[in-house]
Every structure is written in structure tokens, then in C-alpha cells.
């Protein structure tokens, strides 16, 4: 799974619960849920130091 970008998404000013990521070349909106396979992979790569999640706009 190739993740080339990640950014927190704030919806209507609420606390971020979603990450907008480019996964295998496609834009994906990933919920911050431990049971979600993409979120698990994002956090694995963040922990490994190979991915940084940008702040929300």
C-alpha cells in the first residue's frame, strides 16, 4: 500500500476525525478508526517515520 500524502480534514470546523490521503494514486478519505485497514497502515507508517500527516487547512 503506497501512501504518498496525508492531511487531517476538519469538517464544518469540528475536530478532525478523517484523514485525506493519496493511497496507491487515489484520493481517499480515511476515518480515524482503529478497525480501518487504511488508518492502521497510515499510523504504522507514521510510527515508522516514513509518513507525516499534515495539519488541516
Amino acid at each position: 500500500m503506497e501512501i504518498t500524502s496525508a492531511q487531517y480534514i476538519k469538517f464544518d470546523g469540528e475536530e478532525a476525525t478523517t484523514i485525506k490521503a493519496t493511497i496507491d494514486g487515489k484520493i481517499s478519505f480515511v476515518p480515524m478508526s482503529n478497525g480501518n485497514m487504511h488508518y492502521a497502515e497510515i499510523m504504522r507508517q507514521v510510527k515508522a517515520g516514513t509518513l507525516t500527516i499534515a495539519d488541516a487547512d
Partner: protein
Amino acid sequence: MSRARDIADLAGSADAGGLTGRNLIINGALSIFQRGTSFTSQTGVAYHADRFETQAYNVGTSDYKAEQSTEAPDGFYNSLKYSCTTADTSQDADNQFYIQQQIEAQNIYHLKFYEANPDSVTISFYVRSNTTGSYGMNLKLSDNNSSDGNVGTRVYPTTFTISSADTWEKITKTITLDSSTSETRPTGNNFGMALVIWLAAGSNRQGATANAWADNANTTTAVDAGDFLGSTSNNFHLTGVQLEVGSTATPFEHEDFGTTLRKCQRYYNRLGFMRHQFYSSSLNSANPDLVHSVTFTPMRDNPTANPYTDAAYSSSGSTTTSSTTLTLGAISISSLNALMQRSTSGAGVVKAQYYLELVSEL
């Protein structure tokens, strides 16, 4: 098969937990392909048929095609067909190419394992290939909600044989579940069990002890599964996949298309959305009024949402995807919020339309 044998098999199935709902595999007849029916240039983990994932790593310059085929044994209409489209004869030592279905932990609560006198399960499926010989097959069990690839996940490597080229054969294998009491049963909507069928394994992916439970360590198979991606002559068909409690392979449990589709949609769903709204002035990024909630059939976990076509904006009969942005958030197992924005203004009756794929695979 005789009527007496049929009745005996059914009676055995009833003892094991019921006549219907006994197949723990979803989409075993390979009838549901929501993502499409033909795929090429696939790498890593890829889904083609619903619920069946293909893992292809360290495949060199080779390539394969996966498709829904109408080549099927009697009693079936479809199969999942793999074919090698670009060969690489220098197989990497770490090459792994296998088909897998992961099963939720809560769907195997009724099975006894990680205790003395565990249950047995029987796996059956139909295969057809140009290549005869031994193939690898693994059964996996999560330990305390470990993921399928975790080193602590328990694995039972075994083998099966294809005896005749280009001929449908039914494979059956009974496995006694793990009796080790050092592990902890998985729970909830987490990974619980997986069935793995190997098509290729490099030398570093071979050598697992056959017919014994062990920690996963590194993904391995009990046999040299060959090199499927080493020749463009190679093909492999699979259908009629069943995994059931007990030591008897009962007839495949056929179910209606709608039932199978609904089961698949717990893990993957494709939806189209459209929303109309009247604007007296403008719709643009400063006035992002096309905010709405979308609901869908509850999924296994909060799904990843992928817009798989560009969001389109329509005003005064003209539709465009330019200057249009779709943002999704607040994603739950059955709903999400969508925000449609446009960097240039529009007025009148405007329409937002887009398509999403929702992914909640294990």
C-alpha cells in the same frame, strides 16, 4: 453421489450447526465482482472478486490478469480466473502470490479452538489449472485480535494436489483447529480466521512444517507452490469455496445472489449520489452550501471513502467537473458528511453528483 450419502452429509451438517449458513466463506461461488470483472497491472494487495484478496509481492517484471470467468464446473456459473500475462522466469526468493479470504472473529464465535478437544473444520473448493502438482494452502487463526500478517497469528500450512491439467477437480481438506491454550481468542469485528491458497512462493517463502499449527513468523507455505508468474501459459480457476464446521465436506451451500451481495456490502460498497438545490445567488467556495449527509447499509467498521469519479457540478443544464471539490468527513459505519465546493460561482438549480466506493475490508 447416492441419496443415502446426501442424507448422511446433510445430517452431519445439521449436527455441526445447521443446514443453512454453514459456509463461513462469503461469495464462495464467485458471483459477486462489485469492483469490476477484469483486472490487469495489479500489485501488492488487490481485490477482484468480492471478499477474496490477492497478495502479489516481489513479482519482478511479471504481471497477471484476474477476471470473473464463466468457465465453471457443473452446478456453478462463475469462477475466479488468474492468468499470467507477462512472465518473469527469475523468481524472487521472497516472491509470494496467493489468494486469501479473511473472516471476522464474531463469525467464528461458535467454533472451539485454543482449548483441548477443538473443533475440526472442512475446506472444499473446485480448481482447474494447466499446471498439475502440489499447491500450498494455509488456515490462519488470530491470536488476541492479531492481524492476518502478524507474527503471532497462528498458521496451519498444508497442501493439496491438482492431478489433471485443465480439468475441474474438487479439493477437500479437514483440519483440526488449534488446541494450544497459550493463545487468546479473537473478538468482535476484527480478523478471526483466514483461508489462503498459494499460487507461487519463492525459496524464502517455503519450508513451513506441514499439518501443524505454529506462529506465523514469516509468511510461508509447506510446499514449493511453483512459479505461476513464470510462464504466460499458466492459468488457475477457483470456485465453490466452502469452509464449514465438522469433518465432512457437504454439498456447496448455494444462496441467492441478493443475499451474497448484501454480505459482501458489509466490506465493500459502491454508491452514486446526487443532490439538487436551488440557489438565488452563487455556489462557490465562499458559500459551500451543498453540505449533506449520506447514509448506507451498515458496514464492518468505519469505511474508507474513495470518490472513484470526479465530483461533477451542474448548473443551468451544463455539467462540469472543473473547479469542483468534494470533501468527506464524519465517516461512521452507516453515514458520512459530504461537502461540495466550487471555486467559480453558479446559480439557479444546481446539482452535485459523485460516486463513492466504501471500503471496510479486514
